[in-house]
């Protein structure tokens, strides 16, 4: 793995949630204006303003139950929001899900499944289509062209995430980091304009956390995808991020890392005294944040 470029987010102009700098004159891929999300009749967060542009790498942070996954689901149109408050690729939430590559949180994903990585990626491409995924039969000329193209695309995206060496092996035989790359390839295979990853660094060791972060940044830049990555800990991501969205106390704050993850800002968000310490090697330690109960007891939906 080549050494990741050590471009600190500090040398980027800190953007607030108004329109970003001239680097991308395009409209935001995701925009929330005074949005709220409700699940099971409870408000998870409200008054949220944020925007993510194509080619931007944004981490979604916050303690357990602050509504990070809910944010992704709101963008997918899977949870109730105020009409018009969430705009995705210029339309309402849920209308452009074909353009979103989504990697759900890992629970429920059985890593011992007797299926090859390449099959899982392939299902990302055509899994929602009716019919059967048989490799033989269906020998029509038009279909054959489509099939070759599909195979090409799958190979290409597996190469992009650097998984070519083990894509033909059974998922159960792969390490956590290798599985994560396969899953990212699955989310990417349809050339989405938005990529949303829910805790992809969870359960990875430190070298793999760094490698996957670097990979996501590279994809974000080369494919010009808007990336939202939910994480527990910002530190593995620090040198790759453009912005963070910090969810706490039912509200959200967006901006560059050094603007958002500060004592005063987080204290205001949480409503209690928070201290942010910076270690000598640049890692951030947030001290004093209350755990979930502060927020309306939102857990994963039953």
């Amino acid at each position: 793995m080549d050494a990741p470029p050590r471009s600190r987010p500090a040398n980027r102009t800190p953007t607030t949630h108004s329109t970003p700098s001239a680097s991308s004159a395009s409209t935001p891929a995701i925009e929330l204006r005074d949005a709220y999300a409700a699940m099971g009749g409870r408000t998870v967060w409200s008054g949220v303003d944020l925007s993510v542009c194509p080619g931007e790498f944004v981490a979604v942070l916050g303690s357990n139950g602050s509504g990070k996954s809910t944010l992704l689901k709101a963008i997918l149109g899977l949870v109730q929001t105020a009409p018009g408050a969430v705009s995705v690729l210029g339309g309402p939430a849920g209308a452009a899900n074909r353009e979103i590559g989504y990697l759900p949180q890992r629970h429920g994903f059985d890593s011992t499944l007797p299926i090859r990585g390449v099959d899982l990626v392939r299902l990302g491409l055509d899994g929602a289509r009716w019919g059967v995924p048989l490799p033989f039969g269906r020998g029509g000329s038009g279909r054959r062209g489509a099939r070759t193209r599909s195979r090409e695309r799958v190979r290409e995206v597996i190469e992009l995430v650097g998984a070519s060496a083990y894509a033909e092996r059974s998922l159960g035989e792969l390490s956590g980091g290798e599985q994560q790359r396969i899953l990212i390839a699955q989310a990417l295979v349809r050339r989405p304009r938005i990529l949303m990853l829910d805790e992809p660094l969870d359960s990875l060791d430190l070298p793999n956390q760094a490698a996957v972060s670097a990979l996501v940044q590279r994809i974000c830049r080369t494919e010009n995808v808007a990336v939202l990555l939910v994480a527990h800990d910002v530190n593995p991501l620090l040198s790759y991020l453009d912005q963070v969205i910090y969810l706490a106390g039912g509200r959200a704050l967006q901006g560059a890392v050094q603007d958002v993850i500060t004592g005063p800002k987080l204290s205001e968000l949480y409503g209690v005294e928070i201290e942010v310490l910076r270690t000598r090697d640049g890692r951030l330690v947030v001290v004093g944040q209350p755990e979930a109960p502060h927020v309306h007891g939102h857990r994963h939906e039953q």
Partner: protein
Amino acid sequence: MNNPTLTWNLVKDVHELLVYQFMVNALQAGTIVAVMAGVVGWFVVLRRQSFAAHTTAMMSFPGASGAALAGLPTALGYYLACGIAALAIGRSGGASRRGRSGESAAVGVVQVAGLALGFLFLSLYSGVLEQLETLLFGTFLGIDGNQVLTLAIVAVVVLAALLAIGRPLLLSSLDPEAARARGLPVGLFDVGFLLILGLTVAATSQITGALLVFALLVAPPAAAQALTPRPGLSLALSVVFALLVTWLGLGISYFSIYPLGFFVTSFGFALYVAAKLAHRTAAALRRSPRADEPMAATV
């Protein structure tokens, strides 16, 4: 009929088998069942729903005894009981949108309730439900042409349904969260697949017995999936294994005094053990050369 004996002349043995119409019917029925079980079972094993499959198969007991009590045709009892069980499992599993993780307790409850009802019906029914053993272990005697035809129709329906929803069903079996995000009706697939399973089980257990269906539904696909991670290949292998086990079982039980169920289940079990062993050996062989490398490259 004098007792048939197995000789070493295979051609002669098979020829002897096919002289009798009942044996031809049994082979036809067995073949249809094997194909259906090989395909449906492949999804059962992939979706980790063996327990649900087992329960659905068990429901043929209350189905048959209930039908006897109510004076309904036995076949109707099978279809009703298996269908109700599939819906009950599907509904309780679908209620917790966390996928199938919460399913096993619900399945267990359904199974207990079904068996209790079965015993109740049995004790209420004054006559003798003589096929209790047949119900569980199956028989290959007395399958008539109509039954084979019905079985064929059910098989066509089941396979056509799976053919239509195969790919999205595969995605929602492997990765329900991602499937839901893609807008697939995962809950509907869950219930729909259980209904397909119920139909399969109801049709086949009338002829093969509840335990035998279950053996065919689980052992061949589990063996196939242990052998290869290629979905197309393992599906094909699953059908081949189911056919092999069924034909061998039918052939040998014809010449033997022991029941068909015993042979089919034992062959299925042996196949599964052999496949698992092969899988382990292959994995160990693949690992060892890598361990010899001086230093694994960093990821």
